[in-house]
């Protein structure tokens, strides 16, 4: 399994990004219900690993950081979910 996605918050962030072009930090914070610092640390790891791209823009003259899922992140997410499903299938079979 993907060690980076073993964290529920990081997995949730990737799932939130799956169906949007870009998501603002505030939107992700609202979706994941975490603190600024905690989410920032998780997003930092995802950006560092290349799973998520970060962009700093201005919206109505105010700075905004937004995030987008990369191809690598999408592929890692799909693999990870598949492996979790396999784990559950194995458990169901035993």
């Amino acid at each position, binding site marked *: 399994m993907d*060690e980076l996605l073993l964290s529920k918050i990081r997995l949730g962030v990737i799932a939130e990004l799956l169906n949007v072009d870009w998501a603002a930090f505030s939107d992700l914070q609202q979706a994941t219900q975490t603190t600024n610092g905690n989410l920032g640390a998780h997003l930092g790891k995802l950006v560092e690993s290349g799973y998520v791209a970060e962009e700093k823009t201005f919206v109505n003259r105010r700075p905004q950081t937004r995030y987008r899922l990369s191809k690598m992140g999408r592929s890692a997410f799909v693999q990870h979910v598949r492996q979790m499903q396999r784990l559950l299938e194995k458990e169901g079979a035993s």
Partner: protein
Amino acid sequence: METMQPAEARDHIEMVDRILSRSERSLHVGGEFFLVWGMFSATVTLTAQLVVGRAIPTSSLWLLPVLLAGAIAFSVIRGKQLGKRKDGLSLIQREFFAVLWISMGAAMFTDVVAYQIFTTWASSAIWTVAAAVVLFFIASHGNRRALVCGIIVLVSLAAANFMPHYAGYVLSAGMLLGYAGFGLISIIARDC
């Protein structure tokens, strides 16, 4: 290396399912597209029917290219506005717009290049079919109103087939009720 317990995996998969079903269910695309194109299509067919019935002069048909240009201009401008939103378009929205433009584009292309095959009311019926495809696509994402409106559009097509003298009126009413009506309801409900 960290491992995962089945209970934890189940919990994570349930969370992913919740997030995905929430984001996929919301197809916010703007009912105004349906309103504008439904009214345009209904006007084209109604005008043709009135010209055929000699209720209005043939020169009235010149109004149609003007209306078409207006509908296209509206769609391009509104589409750009939607694309510029801070969160952009979701995958499902992009998929919807692809279905919308392909269906409408194919209908328009057919009307222009195959006018000898799709004559008289057949050329209007093509728009009805394209509208039904778009509405049923939306319905497939859990929108019951789109399903009802899609059925209205298809029923108008079948009814027009058995009322050749009034086919224009029937097809026009179908587009107005089913397509433009769906747009109007969506704008009022603000869920599309």
